[in-house]
């Protein structure tokens, strides 16, 4: 600028020459001033990208590296399709439009929606009034009702808790109960119920503490902190220090954070490049450790209160008052009876209320681990040091890391979180829409939700996946909007077939439904986990349970009987002792991210359904003051058919009871599968 201002008008040719010269000088001087390394491009364009070099330009045809692109919809082709999803499915891999032409009956559709959106069944009455409502908006009203039902969050939280390996305990030898972990679980339920935009959901979990200035004064601000519980959910070997193995434990925490974050938010298998370069994907071993470096300062926050500021202030004021009362007593050196004086002080101190801390994470800026590439992943064999960085195949350059408050945090996790939900990130939106699709159809468009790499499944329709990803981002990352959009497609409403599969209910759903239809299920909105009583021989699965400690974290603490019939999401989830009935129905291992529940159909499940005490008592409960037709209405939400009436009557005529009939209906396939 300064140079150009001094130029006087001279002839055009001269002007061009001078201009060229200036440009040249400027660019040379710019170049000279630039101490930063040359900017490297994505491996898709730049052959000097380290990943392009490492794998000799191969592995770059991986579909998920491509930017998310909304497919253009040809209006000609769209004719005859009410919903873009159906159009894109028919464009996709050989799906036949006729597959979605047979739509499920109205009753079935409502039952399906109810099980898929709130995890519980629609009642006889609900179905009846839905059938009677002939208005075109009838179904939309039902969908809106289900989406705004507080039980929606309780159901949808479950898949996320699986994804982030939620547990109420540490794992390993002592498997200590994490007293406040449930607050993270409640945050997730609230987030789904309040439709917290998914980008915020990500930011809060990875860096809620960095985003928040000052103490939390609203529930939403507190949730930003509680969300950082994500960073502490992994297993933690609390006994390592006894054997001088803290380094191993710390290394395992960082490994867990790297692998879980890669899998849960990005569908990247960073676990495969911990010991060596990835065998199939364009990820290097350095990429694993660059990613890990975002967590280098992450520490357990054991001091921040998890109470809201007004409540915490009351406690602080109360404690100050007590201190003020203690002070003069302590200062009184004339006191004759020293023992009485001390007793009085102790008495007052005992009245102090303690601050409540919980499962929060923060940065410890005094202790930022130097992150090294580890030979074969062995923490005892560090190789070269690395700095934070995103997967270098697309993002080889050092990220811009700004700490909002450098005295408090490094800004590393915030930089990571912002990048995850940025427009440039090709994975995050695709990964979450795929999970939502999987929850609704039983299988994702990508069948491997934690693996968007080369050995993972390719999407059934990339156009549809991208269409949904764009839809989500354009709708302010609203998960509820996305769900509404998907369930209004014909594909979702089709009869069981190509798209919609019959699905055995999950362990949680199975238990919840049994309690629901027998009238036993009680509503509860959050709070500490419920501990069902389990027999001694089950508890002994981890001997540490037999050896409880003073802080009461190693034992098993059965809840009062009146609390037991809550939804399963509120049941205690320890890492080393599992509730046998639930385990029978394929509870996943909760030490690593679970992308999808395995479903088995085996005889022990039949035994658990037929012989467990609680199922029998629920059956008996539902059989009070009723008849067999009413049992069908209550348990199966429908009238019995004439044939069913006949066989049930002859069963009862043989001397069998309504209680036994109830147990039979609870065991029926109709109840065990989502239609």
């Amino acid at each position, binding site marked *: 600028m300064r140079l150009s201002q001094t130029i006087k008008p001279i002839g055009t040719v001269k002007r061009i020459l001078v201009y060229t010269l200036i440009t040249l000088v400027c660019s040379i001087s710019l170049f000279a001033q630039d101490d930063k390394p040359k900017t490297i491009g994505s491996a898709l364009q730049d052959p000097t990208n380290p990943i392009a070099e490492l794998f000799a330009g191969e592995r770059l045809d991986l579909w998920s590296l491509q930017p998310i692109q909304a497919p253009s919809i040809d209006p000609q082709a769209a004719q005859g399709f009410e919903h873009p999803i159906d159009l894109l499915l028919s464009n996709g891999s050989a799906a036949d439009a006729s597959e979605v032409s047979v739509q499920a009956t109205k009753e079935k559709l409502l039952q399906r929606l109810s099980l898929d959106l709130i995890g519980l069944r629609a009642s006889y009455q609900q179905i009846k009034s839905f059938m009677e409502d002939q208005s075109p908006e009838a179904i939309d009203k039902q969908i809106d009702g289900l989406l705004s039902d507080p039980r929606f969050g309780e159901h949808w939280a479950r898949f996320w808790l699986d994804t982030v390996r939620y547990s109420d305990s540490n794992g390993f030898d002592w498997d200590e109960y994490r007293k406040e972990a449930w607050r993270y679980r409640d945050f997730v339920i609230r987030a789904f119920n309040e439709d917290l935009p998914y980008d915020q959901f990500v930011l809060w979990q990875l860096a809620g503490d960095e985003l928040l200035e000052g103490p939390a004064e609203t529930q939403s601000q507190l949730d930003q902190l509680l969300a950082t519980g994500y960073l502490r959910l992994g297993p933690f*070997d609390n006994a390592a220090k*006894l054997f*001088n193995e803290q380094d191993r434990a710390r290394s395992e925490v960082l490994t867990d954070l790297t692998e879980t974050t890669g899998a849960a938010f990005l569908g990247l298998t960073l676990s495969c490049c911990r010991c060596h370069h990835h065998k199939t994907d364009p990820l290097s071993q350095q990429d694993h450790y660059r990613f890990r470096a975002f967590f280098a300062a992450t520490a357990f926050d054991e001091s921040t209160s998890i109470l809201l500021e007004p409540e915490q202030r009351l406690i602080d004021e109360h404690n100050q008052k007590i201190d003020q009362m203690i002070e003069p007593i302590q200062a009184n050196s004339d006191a004759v009876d020293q023992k009485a004086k001390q007793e009085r002080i102790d008495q007052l101190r005992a009245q102090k209320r303690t601050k409540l801390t919980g499962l929060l994470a923060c940065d410890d800026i005094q202790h930022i681990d130097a992150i090294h590439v580890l030979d074969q992943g062995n923490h005892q064999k560090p190789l070269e040091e690395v700095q934070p960085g995103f997967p270098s195949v697309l993002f080889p350059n050092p990220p811009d890391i700004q700490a909002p408050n450098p005295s408090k945090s490094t800004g590393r996790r915030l930089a990571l979180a912002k990048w995850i939900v940025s427009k440039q990130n090709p994975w995050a939106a695709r990964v979450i829409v795929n999970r939502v699709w999987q929850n609704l159809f039983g299988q994702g468009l990508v069948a491997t939700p934690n693996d968007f790499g080369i050995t993972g499944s390719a999407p059934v329709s990339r156009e549809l996946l991208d269409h949904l990803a764009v839809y989500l981002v354009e709708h302010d990352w609203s998960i509820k909007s996305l769900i509404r959009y998907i369930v209004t497609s014909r594909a979702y409403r089709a009869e069981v077939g190509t798209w919609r599969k019959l699905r055995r209910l999950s362990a949680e759903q199975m238990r919840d439904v049994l309690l629901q239809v027998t009238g036993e299920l009680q509503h509860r909105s959050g709070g500490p986990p419920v501990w069902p009583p389990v027999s001694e021989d089950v508890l002994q699965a981890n001997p540490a349970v037999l050896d409880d400690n003073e802080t009461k974290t190693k034992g098993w603490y059965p809840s009062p009987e009146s609390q037991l019939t809550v939804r399963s999401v509120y049941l205690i989830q320890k890492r080393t002792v599992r509730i046998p009935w639930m385990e029978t129905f*394929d509870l996943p291992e909760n*030490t690593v991210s679970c992308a999808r529940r395995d479903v088995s*159909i085996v*005889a022990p499940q039949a*035994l658990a359904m037929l012989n467990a005490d609680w199922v029998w008592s629920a059956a008996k409960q539902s059989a009070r003051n009723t008849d067999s037709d009413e049992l069908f209405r209550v348990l199966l939400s429908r009238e019995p058919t004439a044939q069913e009436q006949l066989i049930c009557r002859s069963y009862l005529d043989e001397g069998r009871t309504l209680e036994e009939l109830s147990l039979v209906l609870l065991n029926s396939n109709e109840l065990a599968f989502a239609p």
Partner: protein
Amino acid sequence: MDLWGKLTEMRIRLDPCNCNQNLNGIGYPGSRRDFLRSLGGGFGMLACGALENSLRAQSPVEKPYAVRSPHFAPRARSVIFLFMVGGPSQIDTFDYKPLLEELDGKPVPSSFREALNATRHANVFHGCDDLILKSPFAFKQHGQSGLWVSELMPHTAQHVDELCFIHSMQADSNNHAPASYQLHTGDVRAGKASLGSWVTYGLGSESEDLPGYVVLFDAGPLGGSANYTNGFLPPAFQPTRFRSSGPPLHHLVPQPEFASGQTQSLELLEKLNRIHRGQYEELHSETSQLDARIATYELAYRMQASAMQVGRLEDEPQHIHQLYGLNDPDVRTQSFSRKCLLARRLVEKGVRFVQLYDMPDKDGWDAHSKLVENHKPRAKWTDVGVAGLLADLRQRGLLDSTLVIWASEFGRTPMKQGDLGRQHNAAGFTIWMAGGGIRKGLRIGSTDEIGLMATERPVQFRDLHATILTALGLDFERLSFEVSGRDERITGVAGSAKPLMDILL
């Protein structure tokens, strides 16, 4: 849990939803499954090399319980893994170190200390006194082989010519849970699949009405269920816990009010389920899952009888009770002995893998203080049952096909800790194997002269796993399962496991 699956399969084909998430595009057009089906023969009929690996990885998912042929001729058909929880001391049981007598009460000679410090096991010193504690137990040579056994194990000592000792085991952690996870699953972190799950995944089950993988314990191992879990393997390879007294399984016995009419109730259930199934059949929908669930009720009914039957130890004659020590006045001996007898009955019925824990309380062999008071009773509770099991398997001709392993997550230090106790020792400890394809009356590897660290031929758990799988006819490199793009193996992905071929027959 994997009960009665084989029968299930004879009736129905398991639905794709039962499959592992990593199989490409299952249920969608053009999937690998369709491709394989289009080849016409179905699973098991293909043998071309390129496809073989993916088939092996896939068929256990499709048909979890079917008997699968091993990769090569097996030496053993089933496994009984006797897990001594908490770290019994090698230098007080099977690893005789006369030098300890001389050094008793003296500091650890610097040469041993320096040698250990130079390794990843330096932390074994952590928490110990710098004083040698000699073994309070007398050692003697036994049998034709002349192998050393201490007075703690007089009954086991009688079978010493059947045993193969490995004196140079090492674990990667000196803490219970991580080391125990590693012995079970190959990894110090929780979340991987246990050996029993791997073996049933590899070989299926030979029992038609019992599970393929059974765990037996009063109290479980340190670190809990994550030890013996199926981990990332499909739920069909979960272990089933049997109890050695009372009803052997959870939820096995019907409620009294339901029991009398159970047959009629199950008939009604089947009728209702068939009506329900008819609706889907009319729509030409896939009904295999519905069929599978109908079949499980028939099987559950039958299993109530068969599981009760296998658990009825009182059916055994008195001399067998005597042999295992079931009549011992100490209930803890009885309890362990019952498990040993139950293990034999399970293996006899075709159960593939029995994982048996000796834990009668919360401590196990974890003798941080009072070694004598800890080890003496524990040896007594377990010794007679172990010996009885070996003798009984042999007399029934089952020992040749049953691999018996006696092991713990680590051993203990020759240094004293606390009040005449010993610290954990992952640097060198002893396990033994017997039966199914293992050479007899043998010892391999050794620790230094004070029993502190494996010096000759250190053996890692992955080597042990590789050896066990080899004995079962499984190629440990090929026995893999794809998890998020990675072929997981119990021996790890690095390919560094070395089976102990010289101890195999």
